[in-house]
């Protein structure tokens, strides 16, 4: 089972698709989840997820807006998609009956 931050990272990377790399994933997490994401947490989590086979990373070419430095590109593997889906399903199941989840379901109707 994924951890909360691992789920956020995989989901952000999946949403960014071909443009998923360190800085972009970080900005996505900070803007959507509304929490600070340190570079340390980001890259150590990316490494851990890659070791588990849930992500694949590679180095892109250097770009001028980054001072001629390369990006670490990220792609979610099929195992990563499955793990994120399992986490999401578990959150939905466990949230049934919780007042905030019921309110949300009501408001969306």
């Amino acid at each position, binding site marked *: 089972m994924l951890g909360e931050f691992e789920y956020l990272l995989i989901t952000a990377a999946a949403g960014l698709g071909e443009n998923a790399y360190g800085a972009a994933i970080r900005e996505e997490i900070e803007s959507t989840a509304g929490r600070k994401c340190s570079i340390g947490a980001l890259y150590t989590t990316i490494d851990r997820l890659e070791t588990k086979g849930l992500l694949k990373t590679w180095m892109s070419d250097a770009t001028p807006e980054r001072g001629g*430095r390369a990006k670490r590109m990220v792609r979610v593997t099929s195992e990563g998609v499955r793990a994120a889906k399992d986490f999401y399903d578990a959150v939905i199941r466990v949230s049934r009956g919780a007042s905030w989840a019921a309110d949300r379901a009501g408001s969306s109707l």
Partner: protein
Amino acid sequence: MTSAGWSFVAVAAQLLESREREVVLGDLMETRESAWRGFLDVLGLAVRRQLLLWKSWRPWLASFGLAFPGSLLLMGFSISVSQTYQKLVSSTVFNATGLTLGPGFTLLLCNVLLLVAWSWTGGFVIGSVSRRTVRVSAVLSFVPCVFCLARFRVESLSRFCLLLFMLPAIWGVHRGLQIARIKLSSALILAAAITVLTIPTWSRSGSWLPNWALSWPAWYLVVMAWRSQAIKDGKRWRAG
């Protein structure tokens, strides 16, 4: 980011591996972080990386199993070698027919060889077992040296006699970082030579513990070289 702030971040980034350093500095430049947050981010990543390394047994072995106790024992042995040398010099006489060496020459030669071999193998294992924590191992090895240098009180000897082991040890660390493993034949010769050189001390009670504490790195190198050769042979056999 100001150039002064940027230079602090660049210095902190030296703690990261080159590939990661490039990626992180690129990310910081792209997102236009403040120098302070960039500095904390880089430092945070470096600390996390170091902490992750310590989840393995290797840095513990290199630092606390070898660097710290090894430097203490080798300092003691360096003093012993210096005293043997001093006795030999005082008993050596010049006469009309030439130089007559004192009786301790063979012992001194054995001890010098042993000091070099123990220091080199210890350094090699420190460098090869845990490359990325070698700075911590170096600090743990220097701390007892500084302590002993400050408290050294032997009138007849220079305090720098404590550090005789340093040069071969640094050479060993350097080689360990470069090649990680030595050939099985070289490792066996080295370990056998060290064991033979310790034979004169076997009769002394209480010397077996420091002997083995300093000799195990040589036998560790034998085991590592043997494993590496067995893996290579296995691959060659499967390919053939």
